[in-house]
């Protein structure tokens, strides 16, 4: 039976363990054996600024995602199963859509001559120009769109797991829908909200495509800094130290997630 596991184990040793070991080695030894790469990461003004914007963008897009996702998840939860399956397609379609298609669509939507700006000009006069692209709002919109399906799945799962008798009991006792929502549904869906937020944080911390295509120079995240060091300054040691930092951050969050609920998650950003 072990023989069935061996091929994958060998593959992982060759293409997962060894490559990651190289990253750790490069972060420590490249160019010389010192902790200088890590020291620089934690002291240089540039790295601290990028670290800060990484945390800010991740946190803010997670909050925005939660605010958009909750009503959708709640609406899906209220639907009879047939309608729910149909409406789920609207969530699954973006889930399966390439991040590049989305990024392209958002450059068209949010640009100076984009749809949003055209509508704004029609409403508020021809001088209106909203700056929505290559800056923070652009990144947040793009990230929130990428994260939404993950958040909706997490919240919907916890809503559907609730005991419906509780609601019925509250109804019988004369509670209105808002009252039921505030004192039963929302508190009981907290595990889903927490799991969803943690998943979104993990996914957004390592984000590369969205900040690169929809953000400006001030919206550089850790992943973009890694790329800059590999492809432009050729400083592999620093790139490796940044990658190790990122893996430790997302690894710690992932450990909390699997502690909270034993589920998996996907990422392809």
């Amino acid at each position, binding site marked *: 039976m072990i023989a069935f*596991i061996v091929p994958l184990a060998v593959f992982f040793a060759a293409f997962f363990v060894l*490559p990651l070991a190289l990253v750790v080695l490069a972060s420590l030894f490249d160019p010389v054996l010192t902790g200088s790469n890590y020291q620089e990461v934690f002291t240089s003004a540039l790295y601290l600024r990028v670290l800060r914007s990484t945390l800010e963008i991740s946190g803010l897009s997670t909050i925005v995602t939660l605010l958009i996702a909750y009503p959708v998840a709640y*609406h899906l939860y209220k639907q009879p199963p047939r309608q729910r399956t149909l409406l789920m397609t609207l969530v699954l379609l973006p889930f399966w859509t*390439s991040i590049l298609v989305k990024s392209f669509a958002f450059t068209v*939507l949010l640009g100076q001559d984009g749809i949003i700006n055209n509508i704004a000009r029609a409403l508020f006069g021809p001088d209106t120009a909203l700056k929505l692209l290559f800056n923070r709002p652009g990144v947040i919109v793009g990230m929130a769109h990428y994260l939404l399906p993950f958040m909706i799945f997490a919240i919907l799962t916890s809503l559907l797991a609730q005991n419906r008798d509780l609601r019925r009991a509250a109804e019988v006792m004369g509670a209105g829908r808002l*009252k039921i929502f505030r004192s039963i549904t929302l508190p009981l869906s907290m595990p889903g909200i927490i799991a969803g937020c943690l998943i979104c944080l993990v996914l957004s911390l*390592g984000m590369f495509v969205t900040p690169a295509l929809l953000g400006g120079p001030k919206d550089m995240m850790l992943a973009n800094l890694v790329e800059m060091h590999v492809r432009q300054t050729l400083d592999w040691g620093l790139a490796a130290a940044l990658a190790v930092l990122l893996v430790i951050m*997302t690894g710690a969050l992932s450990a909390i997630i699997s502690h909270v609920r034993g589920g998996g998650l996907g990422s392809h950003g």
Partner: protein
Amino acid sequence: MAAMGKRTLKRSSLAEHWFPALGTVAAIFGYIFLVLPSLIVIPMSFGAGSELVFPPRSYSLELYRQYFQESTWMAVTGQSVKVGLATMAASLVLGFSAAYGISRTDFRGKGLLTVFLLSPMFMPHIAMALAMYLYLSRLGLVGTTYGLVAAHTLVTVPFVIVTAFAGLRYVDRNLELAAATMGAGRLRIIWKVVLPLIVPSIVVASLFAFLLSFDEVVISYFISSVQSETLPVKMYSSIHWEISPVLAAISSLLTVLSFGACVAMSLLQRNDQ
């Protein structure tokens, strides 16, 4: 006191009254936001001419013609299909056999091994991209299709394993035992008993693996060369440097592909239950 009580009652009943409607409005806003990018690219793709405006001033199939006649776009699309199919094959074989091995035995550290085999799921792609880049450049495999397939397989295999576990859970082990008592060997049992029972999960896993590979951009961006460039890598540079209108046609085709995948998945999952 009485008046105040009455007022709060009124206010709360007003909130009660509006709550369902407000909830629905917020949900509709959410649905529109979710499908907006997909909805926007399709009319754009039928625009004529070289500028990206919405709605297009006139309609034509010009952008599709550009995509299908441009040999570089065709080459990268072909490369993505090739890498996707190879990745699918590799991750199905490796993933299903490992999942079978793990689900049919007990040993110390089984849980830990499973977590380890699923861990690429939790790892930022940028870290794997750097790792693969450093590693493959030592082996002289940067820019090769082999390198791309190996890296993509690492990304897709955890999803295949999860799907395989789900499928294998519903295979009655007594069937395997019965076949074994009647003298069937292990491989024969797998071929004749287990595989026919998990066809739906194999199809779901194949779709998963192919699409994840077909859409993967960060790792491919690091380890591909001009010769081995995939479709997402070329799209990335195209959006990054100059936004070419032909992207609208490509995006629409990819949206149709995603929609097909959605429908296929939900049909398969319904059959699974």
